[in-house]
């Protein structure tokens, strides 16, 4: 694919406008902007957001950051809400009530709370029913909108307000759910895990594929949160890079059942590099807590090996 991110940024008008109230150093706005940039310019979109940081910060009455049509209903039902809009589109198209040569695309955004947890059923239903839509999870690993409570996406040992690192219990004691795998197991045409790294290439290409693959598609995008993770706001891109280079957040896609790891670090960095700059993992670096880092590394290594095997098996 001929690709030049500078050209895309320069030539395609943004569909996600400045002036929203997302925090400085938040990983989510670049995700929304880049995913929408992957839309063909002639195509209209209906965007649906689950209740969460992104929704409350981008559509506070009477202002909106979304230049396409946008709907928000509640926390747990972006999947179902958008599936209804998509069904309406198919119905009206079929009946000749919408112009044949004009296309509308359907894109949902939800945080990990609205996607991994409370909205999982709604998302699963929408994907299983085969609606032609993309669900984008911006995963910041906790309920950030309500003040950093643990979710099933929160990494092992992380300090959150409902899994505080205390004297008896050192943070979240459970490992995170692997939602990308859960969605891949729906046998949808396209599921991918990506991130807004240095040149946005991976995110842009996967977004375009997701949007223009017929049928349901799922993107899981890691979106760091400076408040919840505890890193200086200007370090966002560095944190993203470390997530990928340590294989904390492997970049891969599952297209019609075939796994493809889209980036393999030449030299996998130790997980400390990713954990160290973040306040939520600070307690893991206290003397006597080395076991936590070891266990974290072991879990990551196992998952990475698993992924390599999946790639091998599905491409035989």
């Amino acid at each position: 694919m001929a690709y030049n991110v500078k050209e895309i940024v320069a030539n395609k008008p943004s569909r996600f406008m400045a002036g929203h109230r997302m925090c400085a150093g938040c990983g989510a706005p670049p995700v929304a902007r880049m995913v929408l940039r992957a839309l063909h310019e002639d195509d209209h979109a209906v965007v649906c957001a689950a209740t969460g940081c992104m929704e409350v910060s981008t559509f506070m009455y009477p202002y909106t950051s979304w230049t396409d049509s946008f709907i928000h209903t509640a926390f747990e039902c972006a999947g179902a809400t958008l599936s209804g809009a998509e069904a309406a589109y198919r119905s009206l198209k079929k009946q000749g009530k919408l112009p044949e040569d004009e296309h509308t695309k359907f894109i949902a955004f939800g945080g990990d709370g609205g996607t991994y947890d409370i909205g999982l059923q709604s998302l699963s239903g929408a994907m299983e029913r085969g609606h032609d839509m993309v669900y984008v999870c911006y995963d910041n690993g906790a309920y950030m909108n309500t003040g950093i409570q643990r979710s099933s996406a929160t990494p092992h040992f992380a300090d959150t307000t409902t899994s505080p690192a205390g004297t008896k219990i050192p943070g979240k004691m459970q490992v995170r759910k692997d939602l990308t795998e859960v969605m891949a197991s729906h046998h949808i045409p396209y599921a991918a895990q990506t991130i807004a790294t240095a040149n946005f290439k991976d995110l842009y290409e996967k977004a375009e594929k997701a949007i223009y693959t017929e049928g349901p598609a799922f993107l899981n995008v890691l979106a760091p949160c400076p408040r919840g993770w505890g890193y200086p706001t200007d370090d966002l891109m560095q944190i993203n890079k470390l997530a990928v280079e340590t294989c904390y957040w492997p970049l891969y896609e599952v297209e019609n059942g075939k796994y493809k790891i889209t980036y393999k670090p030449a030299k996998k960095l130790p997980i400390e590099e990713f954990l160290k700059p973040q306040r939520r993992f600070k307690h893991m670096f206290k003397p006597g807590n080395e076991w936590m880092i070891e266990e974290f590394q072991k879990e990551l290594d196992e998952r990475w090996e698993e992924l390599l095997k999946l790639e091998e098996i599905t491409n035989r």
Partner: protein
Amino acid sequence: MSIRERLSGNEAAAIAMKQINPDVVAAFPITPSTEIPQYFSTFVSNGTVDTEFVAVESEHSAMSACIGAEAAGSRAMTATSANGLSLMWEMIYIASSLRLPIVMSLVNRAVSGPLNIHNDHSDAMGVRDAGWIMLFSENNQEAYDNLLMAHRIAEHKDVLLPLMVCQDGFITSHSIENIELVEDEKVKEFVGTYKPEHYLLNRKEPMAIGPLDVQPYLFEHKYQQANAMRNAKKVIEEVSKEFEKMTGRKYSFFEEYKLDDAEIAIVCMNSTAGTTKFVVDSLRAKGIKAGLLKVRMFRPFPAEEIANALSHLKAVAVLDKSDSLNGAGGALFEDVTSSMYVNKKQVPVVNYVYGIGGRDTTSYDIEGVYKDLMEIAKTGETGNPYRYFGVRREK
């Protein structure tokens, strides 16, 4: 010529939906309304409707999908009962606040718990403050007719509110009765096409709906909703008159059965009105001036009209097929009595909670109520107004 048929209440609702031919139906099975999406799926599978049927994984998703579909610019319908409506509850409020004229067939059933699949009105009463227009139906004919009028009311520019048509689970939903259907073409013409002013799929005017709506705005938006509900009264009256012209079947806010010269009367909703009419007739044959006021339009509540219609009576009993568990009385009772109070109509009124969880309501039960009313009419004393009939209890 209208078509004479024999249908159950659920069949009647499904046939109405077929004739309306909505763009999207999203529904999840729940007893006793399951048959509605079942019948409707057959229409979809056989291509007799243009509808996209969304077989959602829950009622919460059913209402969410209806909201998405209606906001997108299409007509969306659903059907549910009891716990299904409870699960939708969050989205019920969102549907009305987004001013989306979604139409629902609610086949009334007891809300858990404990689990019970039979009829009472606890499901409907749970959403009475949710901003939906609520029409109640005595039988399959009324369930059908109310559905045919639903879109005209809900989609009216002065209204733009969702609407639910209620009927009693099993009692009417599963009972086959004679019904007069309107011809397909006439229904199509009467219902008309849906032309929303703003909708998501209008690329010429992208819109955003469902904002974070904080202190400077939410109050005004709620006020607008309240106004829309007030406006609905006039629209319901107009549409009902037009429907009467087409079918000869007259619908008002409520039905007055032998109420004009009555001295005692019952106020109730849905199928119990049928039983009550039978009892009224038998009492009248004995020279007892009994009457009935059957509420069709529960939301908006025709407060002044009901107060006036009951003002000449010597005693009134309001029957609630749902207990409000508030130590004071059922929802319909509270609405009726407060309407009478603010309209300065002083009539002794008592409340009976009855029929909970499908407990059979017989003509003998209704006769008993009229018997109590005769006593109250004589003495003017109501005693404890919060009463029950049909329940076993310690003496």
